[in-house]
Each structure stands twice: as structure tokens, then as C-alpha cells.
């Protein structure tokens, strides 16, 4: 843990690389709905791509990778808490 907290801060170079990755993933995302071969896995694939972008921004741009574990705990309660709750809500309301 201590190791994580003291990881060296990223440089602008890292930021540009991350931005490039984000752009790339976005390009793939936009393409996915138009490729009918991907239809069967469209839903999990798009969720996965969104997750990559999400955590790239959180980890690098928001520095969560480099910060105190406390912040991660605080934030991830919300991020990971919201999923099970609303999946249960939607299931019980027959939304799928």
C-alpha cells in the first residue's frame, strides 16, 4: 500500500499517452454498433470499453493511482456500490 501511495507522479507525457488511448477506445466504441458481427457481444463489449475509459481517467487524470488509499475507498464505495443495488432493482422490475 505504501508503495502505491508513493508512486511517482505522472508527467504530461503520460497524460498525452492516456488521451491517445482514450481516443482510440472511443473510436472502437463508435464502430462497434455498426459491425454486425459483433452484435452478440455488443453489450458486454461496450460496457468493458467504457470501463477502460472510466478507470483510465480516474486512475491517471484524477491521480487516484497515486493517491492515498483512503480516497480510493471513499470513491469506490460509490462506484461499486451502485451496480449491485440497481441491478437488483432492474431485475425485480423485469427491465431485462
Amino acid at each position, binding site marked *: 500500500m505504501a508503495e502505491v501511495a508513493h508512486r511517482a507522479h505522472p508527467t504530461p507525457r503520460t497524460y498525452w499517452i492516456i488521451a491517445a488511448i482514450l481516443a482510440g477506445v472511443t473510436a472502437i466504441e463508435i464502430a462497434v454498433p455498426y459491425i454486425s458481427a459483433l452484435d452478440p457481444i455488443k453489450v458486454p463489449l461496450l460496457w468493458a470499453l467504457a470501463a477502460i475509459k472510466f478507470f483510465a481517467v480516474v486512475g491517471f487524470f484524477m491521480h487516484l493511482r497515486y493517491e492515498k488509499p*483512503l480516497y480510493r475507498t*471513499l470513491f469506490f*464505495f*460509490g462506484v461499486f*456500490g451502485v451496480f449491485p*443495488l440497481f441491478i437488483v*432493482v432492474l431485475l*425485480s*422490475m423485469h427491465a431485462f
Partner: protein
Amino acid sequence: MVLDTSKDLVPAQPTGIWSWITTVDHKRIGMMYGVTALVAFFVAGLEALLIRLQLATPNGTVLSADAYNQLFTMHGLTMLLVVVMPVGAAFMNYFIPLHIGARDVAFPRANAFSYWLFLGATIMLLSSFVLGGAPDGGWFGYAPLSTQLEEFVRMDYYAIGAQLLGIASIMASANFIATVFTMRAPGMTLMRIPVFTWMAVVVSFLLIFSLPIFGVGLFQMYFDRNFGTQFFGGGGDPLLWQHLFWLFGHPEVYVLILPAMGIVSEIIPVFSRKPLFGYPFVVFSGIAIGFMGFGVWAHHMYTAGLGPVAEAGFGIATMMIAVPTGVKIFNWIGTMWGGKIRFELPMLFAIGFVSLFVIGGLSGVTHSVVPSDYQQHDSYYVVAHFHYVLFGGGVFGFVAGAYYWFPKWTGRFLDKRLGLWHFWLMLIGFNMTFAPMHILGLNGMPRRTYRYGEGLGWEFWNQVATVGSFIIGISFLIFAWNLIKSRKHGVEAGPDPWDGRTLEWSISSPPPVHNFDEIPIVEHVDDFWHRKYATDDDGRAVRMADVTGGTLIEANTGGEGSHEEDMHMPSPSYYPIIAAGGITTVGYGLIYVPGGWVVAGIGLLITMWGVFGWSLEPVTRGEHHD
């Protein structure tokens, strides 16, 4: 960051109305929460008495149906959101910094803002009685009934008023979390903070994560009422509201009870002269209750049509909350076991809490038995359950806290004779009022009914309940009198009247503006006790020296590692009240749209003024956090 290193004199307590309006002192803010909530308790209690009068006889004619519906809605809403929650906030404000050895909360101005916004929302909700009618959709405001009558602004008051209370609570909770996680005194590790403060942390998390869900539901209700959206009506599904509401509403009930449990966990050790039995278990069971509290919301919807699988799952999950709660109960009894119990007033109320809460908890477990709940739901059996946990639990716990800490607030004891009258009348009145409701509910009396016919066998117990409620009323009149009288004329208490265990007893009563002359260095759970007592070979406590509170910290700190701190307290600010006033104005405007748009616009400008003034105001006078 520019820090003023010159040392000021120890800050003096400012006086006058203006000093209260601009105060950012967590103790004063706590006081204001407490007083506001107490006033609201009398209002909501009076509403309850009217309800009881109406129900005393079959086909009662004291109230019209319309008045009755407003009264029970406002009674529930006020008791939960404007009485019990803020009383919790009052204790948290006052004691979190004292418990962790801090000078104030993390964001004193945000703290003041939370209070003022809470006050604004309270005034808004209560003013609805004279401004077009109070909310009348029940405290959980089920859609589409709550979105139905656009002709009346009543449920707009609900939607906006609760929204503002929610914003205030989210800010307060974020504040408390930041305070506890970043501002503890040296050596105050997480497993050394007092249980009350632990429960405050759990409560803050519950609020932080549940209130936004409620907020979305309230917005949807408001939009359905005013802008013709179809969240719950039209093609929408009314059950969405129930999910959003109870995703908040169930964690909310633990928000109401956990602070009271924390208070009881402080009181029982002090008056048993033993440390809390199983401190880590009490803490972790509190956390467990918090987590589990998020997974059982649908037990309020057993009859709504979730399907048998979901009902079974939620039923089992709900039952399991009895386990961590039981751990707490057993540890309290374990604390008393082998102790030397002094039956001072705080202890009496705390024991009352334990005894009565078990009744309420067990009736909760009978609710979680789903098929039984098909019968019990929305009957007076539920009303009995939640008054046992909320009043027998919450109110007893908070009153215990008031008797316990009154000497800290004022330097004087509450009168013991009056206190005993209060206790016994409240205990008897409470059981007379709410125990019969179990019977009524099982015998088919539905709740929220302004009248019932003859011949259903409900007359007798309803009369008992009504008499009981007036006994409770008298007991609280005595309490109020005691508070007023003892504040100025009570027996002087000194800094450490109960031989306390936690840091707040180490400083003078009432505490100085800056709390601690020097930030204490903490080495134990119950650190203050360990400064007073050692243990002999048998494990019995032995008083170390003839020390009293107030002098101790000086005597025991200053050694290696102590922090020489500058004593700058945050400067007073009027921006919080302006921002809060602005938002309240916006709220009033939104209730009366479209005509109210202008008001809302003006409110928005005031809010912007407050918010920008506040957040861009450079921090002056060496204030090092805001």
C-alpha cells in the same frame, strides 16, 4: 499557502445574536441543531396528540380526513427528518471534534451552511400549513398518489423540502467523514475513537450514499407534478418510486438509530465503571449493520408485487440484521455484567433503550417473516414496531445523551427529581401508547385511517393508547421545564461529573472555544480514563492520582511528540447563511412554478453571491482550513 505564525491569545467566546448567525464553531452549531430539533419535536408531538385524540373513539370527529392526512404525514416527516436526524447531527457536531481531539470539524463554514439550510428547509416544511396545505401523501410519499393532485402545492413542499434537507445532510456527512479521517489527534487511531464517533462515521456513509438516490426520486416526483414527465404515471411504473425511496428509506432508519446506539455505548461503560465489552465487535457490528442496511430495502414492499424469489431473498437478508444488532445488545449487557452500576438518569434511559429496542427489533424480525408481513404490513403492527425502535430506541437514547452531556454543555446537572418523573412517566406512557398498537394491528386495524367503524373491537386499546400519549406529553413538559430551569440554576457539575472515559471530559464545562489548550496525544481507547486509572494485578481499576478533568491534559501532555499549535480559530462568516437563504428562496420559488420562477431566479442570484463569496474568499487570519 501563507500561514500566520504569530500567536494570538486564546480566542474568547464572542457574544450577541450576530455572533450566532456568523458562527462557525461546531459546538454552537450543534446547540442550534439541538434546539431547533427540540422545538420541532414539540410540534410533531402535538400533531401526534391530535392524531391520538381523533382515534380515541370510533368515527372520531376531532379532525377532518384532510387535516388528519396532513397531520400524520407531517408528524412522520418531521419526527424523522427534522427531529431525530438533526438531534443526531447535534450530538455529532458537538462531540466528533471533542472525541477525536480536534479544534473543529474539517469545514466549519460548510458546517454552518448545513445547519442554515436545514433550518431553511424546516421552516419551509412547517410553513406549508399556512401556505396552501401541508404534505398529505404519507411520509414515504408513494407515487402516483404523490404526483396526482397538481392543484395543491402540498407534495411540492414535500419534494422540495426533503430535497433541501438532503443537500444539507450530504454536506454535513462529507464534513464529518473528512473530519474523522483526516483530523484525529496524534495517536487517535481508528480503533481508538469512541463508539459514538464510529457510529457517526457509519451514519455519514449511509447518508452520503443513500440520499442522492432519494434526491433523484424527489426530482422525478417534482417533475411529474410540474412538468408533465412520466416517471411514475403515464407509461411509468409506480414501483420505481418505491425502490428509490426505500433504497434511501431503509438505510435512513439505521441513520436514526446508530447515533443513539453510539450514545448508549458511551453511557453504559461510564455508569458500569467498566470498559465497553468487546469494543471492536461493537464497532464492527455497527459497520455491518450499515452494509446490510443497504441490502434490505425491499422489505417494505413485500405486498407490492416483487415476485416470490425477490421476497424470499429480501426476507432472509432482513432477518440477518438481527445478528449484528444482537451482538450490540449482548455486549451492552456484557458491559454491565460484573460492573458497579450507578443508576443515574443517563443510565436509566440507556437501560430503557436496551430493553425497549429489543421489543422493537423483535417485532421487526416478525415483519421480515414475509407471509406474516402480508398481514402486518400497513397495519398498526408496523406503527408499533417503528415507534418501539424510533421512540423506545432513538428517543430514549437521545434523551439519555441529553442527561449525560448536559453538564458538558452548560456546566450544570439536570435536576434529578424532575428527571426521575420524566423517566417513569415517559416509560409508562410510551408502553401504554404503543404496546396496544401491536394488538390493534394484528386485529386488522389499518394505519393512516382517520376513522374506524364500531364493532371491530378496536375501541379499548385505542383509548389506552390515547391516554398513554398524553402521559408522554406530560413527561416531556417536565423535561422542557428541567432544561430551562437547570441551564441557569442546576447543580454545578465541574468538568468531569460522571468520572468519564473519553476526551470531552478532560476539558472544562462548557468547553472553551478552541476545545483543547493543547491537542492531546492518545494512547488508548477511553484515553481519558487511562489517564486517571491504572489496573492492579486482579485487573481492578485503581485511581492513579487525585486528578480532576480540565487539569489533566496539561499535566499529561507537553512531552515528546506534542504539538505546539497556533490557536487560530476559523473566522466567522455570513456567507453560509446567505447561501442557505438563497437556496431556500429558490426552493420556495420552485414550489409555486410557473409564477414562482421569478422568486427562484432571485434566490439563485443570492445563492451565487453566497457560494462564490464563500469559496473565493481568501482564507484570512491564519485560518488554515475552511
